[in-house]
């Protein structure tokens, strides 16, 4: 952390101004109370106040580094010791310097028992003031940092919400589907109506759900099969679907639309880039406290876009699962011999509680 006074010109100027005023009061007191000549009063004031002006700046470091984790008393003791040391050094060095400029008689007045006690008390008070002001600086900069962190968190949350929304509704999927419907109305009006119904069901499912909602896998798979059927109308035989889902998995809960990016990628990098048919396979397994879902598709190994991909969809899934379950290891993928596989593991809270 930067020194709060030295690192900011404005505050440093204010600090200097405060000390000029204090010095003036000090000199004024010397002339009035002790009836000393002005030169001696000014010398005394300058030496002691310039000294505290400098020492005061260095009090920042003990304040910053004193270990406050061991309780109040420990912190209090450490600060007190520091205070005594600082005031002692101040008085000793100040007096030694003053000895060089001021005659013996005036020194006796300036350092009578009473005057000495007052100096020590003033020094102690100044030390405490420093400590308080420095703690205030630390407190406010911590508060600032916390606010900024909160702001960052909110922003990333909003961004991921927006991304999730975007990934739910790919406009090109929509336009191409509408184009297919437009075509079907000419030749196969019944099929067109059927496709409009599927598209409506799919959109309704996508739009009404809250992003954090958990739904049975059964519903999610049903919606995904609607999505794939719509795509099948577009691509015909080029797209095949297979699914193997044990009955006991179907009631487990998954985040709504979590599978959507997986199928969308399979279509985008598999079907879009391949002249040969592409099969999208879905496998589910109930593991100990987890539901495992794998989506596998073959792709054209020569297609460059298929190899690269952008990872946006998968990152979205990762991010969502992280926000929901606070784990980063829930998504994995690998490709082998022209097949791409993504595996999700969805923790089942109620199951893990029983274990």
């Amino acid at each position: 952390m930067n020194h709060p006074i030295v690192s900011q010109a404005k505050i440093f100027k204010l600090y200097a101004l405060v000390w000029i005023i204090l010095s003036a009061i000090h000199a004024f007191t010397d002339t009035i109370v002790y009836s000393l000549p002005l030169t001696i009063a000014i010398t005394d004031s300058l030496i002691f106040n310039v000294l505290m002006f400098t020492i005061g700046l260095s009090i920042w470091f003990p304040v910053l580094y004193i270990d406050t984790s061991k309780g109040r008393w420990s912190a209090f003791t450490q600060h007190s010791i520091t205070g005594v040391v600082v005031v002692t050094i101040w008085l000793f060095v100040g007096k030694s310097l003053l000895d060089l400029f001021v005659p013996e008689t005036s020194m006796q007045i300036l350092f009578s028992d009473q005057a000495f006690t007052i100096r020590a008390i003033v020094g102690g008070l100044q030390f405490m003031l420093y400590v308080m002001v420095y703690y205030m600086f630390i407190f406010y900069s911590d508060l600032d940092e916390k606010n900024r962190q909160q702001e960052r968190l909110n922003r990333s949350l909003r961004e991921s919400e927006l991304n999730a929304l975007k990934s739910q509704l790919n406009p090109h999927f929509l336009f191409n589907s509408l184009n297919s419907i437009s075509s079907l109305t000419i030749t196969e009006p019944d099929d067109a109506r059927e496709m409009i119904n599927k598209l409506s069901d799919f959109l309704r499912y996508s739009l009404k759900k809250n992003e954090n909602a958990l739904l049975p896998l059964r519903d999610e798979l049903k919606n995904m099969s609607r999505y794939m059927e719509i795509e099948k109308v577009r691509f015909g035989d080029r797209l095949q679907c297979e699914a193997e889902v044990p009955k006991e998995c179907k009631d487990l809960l998954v985040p709504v639309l979590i599978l959507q990016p997986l199928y969308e990628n399979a279509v985008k990098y598999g079907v879009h880039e391949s002249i040969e048919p592409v099969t999208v396979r879905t496998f589910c397994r109930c593991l100990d406290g987890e539901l495992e879902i794998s989506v596998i598709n073959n792709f054209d190994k020569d297609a460059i876009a298929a190899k690269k991909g952008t990872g946006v969809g998968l990152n979205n899934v990762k991010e969502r699962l992280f926000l929901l379950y606070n784990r980063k290891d829930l998504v994995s993928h690998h490709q082998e011999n022209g097949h791409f596989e993504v595996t999700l593991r969805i923790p089942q809270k109620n199951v893990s509680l029983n274990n």
Partner: protein
Amino acid sequence: MPQYKALIVDDEPLARNIIKAYLKKWPEISIAAECSNGFEAIKAIKEHQPTMLFLDIQMPKVTGLELMEVIDEPLHVIFTTAYDQYALKAFELNAVDYLLKPFNEKRFNDAVEKLMQKLNSGITSNQKQISNLQNSTEENLERIVVKKGNKLEVIPLDKLLYIEAQDDYVMLYTDNNHFLKAKTMKYFEDHLPNELFVRIHRSYIVNTEKIKHLEPYSKDNHLAIINDEIKLKVSRTGYKKLKELLDF
């Protein structure tokens, strides 16, 4: 009696159907063939010599835009796509029109009308002019589509050894083949990823990963050794660029 032949290129059968249906109202146009990808399209163009092309952009392996680049035959193109971001590039390629899916019959007829006017005024799109026009587009190439005889070839960048200047064309060299393309050296200099490809000479752009080593040639020049047969001249500025990139 149809005077004009049309080719429909789209990977979705339903999307082709809609164009077929709309074209029924145009007795002067006959549909010569339907193609579901660029490879079929190149063959069909050679075979049927169509007057016009209805061309989708997003297709497997070769996009409609890439296909346009390698077509030498004079023909008129109407793009049909769900993506609006390629419109600028399409018009740079002298497209007659750009139809956003789904489009209605009126919009389609307007596009064909426009095409007919062009036909009647006798203007045909000229490929050589096109290739120099489209230097404005932004992103790096990921692959290069070329035509050899009747066949379309896709060259991934990691298969490309180097590019040689040949008058108005360039020659692209791979391990066991070479392809002519109607593009300028400047175009490739601008659109190949510059962390991989360097213009080492007035006549050469090289894939730096394919350089085995460099050897001195004359006072100011070096040779980049690709293999036993291919040794490319490196100019002084080219050598400097290589040195900077490869950090030797």
